[in-house]
């Protein structure tokens, strides 16, 4: 379980988080919905200790992230897979090298096992025989899939998705949404998805949290969100109806 309590964060003069509270339960897919540039992605980075909050606590499986030593924090990160907004593939490495990097560094695998695991991770994201390609020669949708394969290579307990469908056409975005659902079923991961795309949110989410002006103004199920009278929530529902 992941628990965020009273998180405050400021960048320069801009107050991004004003006492954020959030609970992510095991085996659920929680979708954080909010406008772009509001600080949703920062929350994901805080959970794995890439950014530190000014105050407040983040507890993952009973461990306070802020109090961990660097080694402990690295061990905690093994539990997470992170799909970055632009996939963040290492552009000096091939697709295969991107995926096997963490396996070689952290796993006790033989070369043959690594090759098998890379193939399996690519198979899970519906890609075959792309190990030799460079990131610059594949499409945006494929990059996201490879990013996903890299994230799941070490079979994480938690998956963090930062705007997984942003910049993709509808068909490719739907494909990514289906993958997120399949990975949940196949690997049994707990997921947090950050998005401003309400359509994708409703496809993948079990529970939803609406992030506005540095706080969560509502958390609930799909029906709770759809029936909410709150105008700040309604604007997302109406944007979905329009699309």
């Amino acid at each position: 379980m992941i628990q965020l309590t009273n998180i405050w964060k400021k960048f320069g003069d801009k107050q991004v988080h004003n006492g954020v509270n959030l609970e992510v339960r095991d085996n659920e897919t929680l979708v954080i919905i909010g406008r772009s540039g509001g600080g949703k992605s920062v929350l994901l980075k805080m959970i794995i200790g890439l950014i530190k909050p000014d105050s407040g606590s983040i507890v993952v499986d009973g461990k306070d992230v802020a109090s961990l030593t660097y080694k402990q924090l690295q061990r905690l990160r093994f539990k997470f897979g992170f799909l970055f907004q632009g996939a963040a593939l290492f552009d000096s490495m091939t697709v295969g090298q991107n995926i096997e990097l963490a396996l070689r560094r952290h796993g006790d695998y033989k070369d043959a096992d690594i090759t098998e695991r890379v193939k399996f991770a690519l198979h899970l994201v519906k890609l075959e025989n792309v190990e030799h390609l460079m990131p610059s020669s594949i499409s945006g949708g494929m990059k996201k899939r490879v990013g996903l394969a890299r994230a799941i290579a070490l079979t994480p307990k938690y998956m963090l998705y930062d705007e997984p469908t942003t910049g993709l056409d509808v068909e490719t975005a739907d494909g990514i949404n289906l993958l997120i659902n399949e990975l949940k079923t196949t690997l049994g991961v707990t997921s947090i998805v950050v998005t401003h795309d309400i359509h994708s949110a409703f496809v993948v989410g079990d529970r939803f949290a609406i992030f506005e002006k540095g706080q969560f103004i509502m958390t609930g199920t799909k029906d709770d969100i759809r029936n909410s009278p709150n105008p700040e929530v309604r604007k997302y529902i109406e944007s979905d109806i329009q699309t």
Partner: protein
Amino acid sequence: MTETTPESTLISRSAELFYRPGKLILTFFEHLGRYMSTIGWMIYNFRNAKEYSGNILQQMVMIGNNSIPIVLFVSMFVGMVTAVQSSYQLYAWIPRSVVGALVTKSVLLELTPLLTALVLAGKVGATITAELGTMRVTEQIDALEALAFDPISFLITPRVLAGVLMFPILVVFGDLVAILGGMFGASAIAGIPVEAFVDGMKSSFETWDAIFGIIKATVFGFIITSVSCYQGFQVQGGSEGVGKATMNTVVLACLSVVVMDFILASVLL
């Protein structure tokens, strides 16, 4: 409403006068502190370097092998120009063999280490900052951390180590080519016989001069690679941020090199 008096205007202008320099000084020390902290972390975790030996070899090729042509080209012309100008300035006053001595001393002590460093501050420094800066803005460095890698050990240590190892080697090659260039310039342009040039070179050569040049190259290699890595890691924003950091690297590395050149000369000579 606040009333504006001549006194309040004076105070406001005085505050403005001190605000900008004060902010600049604070920013300088902030960056110096972060730079030192990065270097400290790199040294503290140096034992991890062996895990990234592949990266170190890759960087040695990038920094060393790929820079050989430009270093040799610059050194050749530096040697020739030094010989021709020395000959022009001293022709009527001194024996011709002195040109050989002058070229050798100048090249070993100052010209090759300094000019190699300034050229590589542009070539190597800019490349490193642009590469790491792009990795920063495209979240590749965050991705490394998310995969439980230490990005300083993975990205900075191999580059700095490669710089420290390869700069002296480049300078040794540069020294040899610059002296050959000097010999060619002296004989072909200034009409000084090769024998006279070699006599001057032999009579003035001291091993310490060559060692001093190598020490300088090692220090310059450290400065250029560490400054460029730090600048790359600090990039914010998009491509504009990468461009700005790359420019800062070249300027800062060149300034640091000339200041350190003076310090080393004062301390070691």
